[in-house]
């Protein structure tokens, strides 16, 4: 309870911490890091399969956060601002690893997704399915379905067309549904 109150108090003092962090106050930066790192590491982990690499990406992103904190003008949510930096840093990492490939084959996109999918699965399992997706599919799927970006935003960030973004999402969904259905089948068979 005390720790919860402390977190609430710290959140209330977030503007003050940001001001101090801008002046390179290490203590304030440390508090902000402790507040946001667990969530941001999770975000990085959506994109980066390896945990250690995900943490490196997160640290790089936090380094940029604290180096460019003066450009944050208290416009919008501070967490949202950090999160966008995390996403960009993750994509940059994957590009450096040359793992990102976007197939530009024309495919017929049709909405025949099954909405009746049992999602009573563990988070780790969800992450595993996401990790198994090809990098291009995975990035677009996470950005669209989890982060909430629009296709034109994804196209801008990934330097691809909106059509490519849509086709990538379509393929990702198709693949993910099949995996979940397959999992459900095995679990139902296993249980019955």
């Amino acid at each position, binding site marked *: 309870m005390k720790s919860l109150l402390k977190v609430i108090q710290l959140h209330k003092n977030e503007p003050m911490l940001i001001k101090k962090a801008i002046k*390179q106050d*290490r203590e304030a*930066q*440390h508090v902000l*890091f*402790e507040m946001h*790192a*667990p*969530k941001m*590491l*999770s975000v990085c*982990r*959506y994109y980066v399969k390896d*945990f250690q690499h*995900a*943490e490196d990406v*997160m*640290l790089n992103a*936090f*380094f940029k956060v*604290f*180096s460019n904190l003066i450009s944050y003008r208290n416009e919008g949510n501070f967490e949202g601002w950090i999160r966008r930096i995390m996403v960009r840093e993750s994509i940059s990492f994957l590009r450096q690893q040359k793992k990102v490939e976007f197939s530009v084959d024309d495919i017929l*996109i049709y*909405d025949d*997704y099954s*909405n009746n*999918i049992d*999602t009573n699965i563990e*988070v780790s399992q*969800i*992450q595993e399915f996401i990790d198994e997706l090809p990098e291009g599919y995975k990035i677009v799927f996470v950005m*669209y*379905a*989890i982060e909430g970006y629009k*296709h034109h935003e994804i196209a801008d960030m990934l330097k691809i067309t909106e059509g490519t973004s*849509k086709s990538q*999402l*379509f393929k990702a*969904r198709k693949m993910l549904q099949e995996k*979940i259905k397959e999992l459900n089948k095995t679990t139902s068979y296993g249980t019955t």
Partner: protein
Amino acid sequence: MAPLKYEDQLKEKLEIRRLQPSENAWEKLSNRLDKEDKKHQKPYWWLGLTASIVGVIFIGSQFFNNHTIVEEPIKVVTIPEVNVKKHEATITITTEDLKPIEELTFTIDKIKIIEKYEDENLIKSTINDAYKVATNPKKENDSNRIGIAQEIKFLKNTLTFEEQKIQEVVAQVTILKNQNNDVTDDEINALLNQAQKEIKLNRLLNETTGVVDANVLLQDVEAELDQSFRSKVFDAIKSSYNSVKTAVAQRNN
């Protein structure tokens, strides 16, 4: 292509997930931030050092420039120390041998030159001239004597210092001629030099302020090149000598 219902459920599950970074994660980040701070601080440090060096050079140059500027106009004018000398020359001319002549003539009985230098830089040259009008005792006329004395005084006042000196030198040469019947060039030169010195001192010294005028000093140096004074004196001596010679010749006759 709206988000699907099951995707929202996946999102909710993923969003509540928290992953704890490794224990030394903050330490890594902090070290990087420290290095970055030092990188940023170094240029400012060098910039400050450079600015201070430039500032010192600028101030130093300004100081030395001003110093030289100040030094240039200050020229110590050393006033030549004039030895306090007291000259007193008394020349006595006796007029016993002179026969009375019809015209009123005067001779300088006594020329007393006193150069008196007093105080620090104040130089005073006073010349006491005693003029006596020698007249024929028989025809001695007080009123005429007074009139001539006044005339001499008037002439003395109207003449410039230089002209006065010329007159004095001429008178001295005349006196010497009468005494010795011959005047050597050395004696004439000595008298001329003496007169020149007195004129120089008179020019240099501003009697009202007692300060030596630099411009006059410069003019004096230039004037040394000018031989007009010497030529004037020689002319005057020449004419006076002739008149004296005539007078002596007439006396002998």
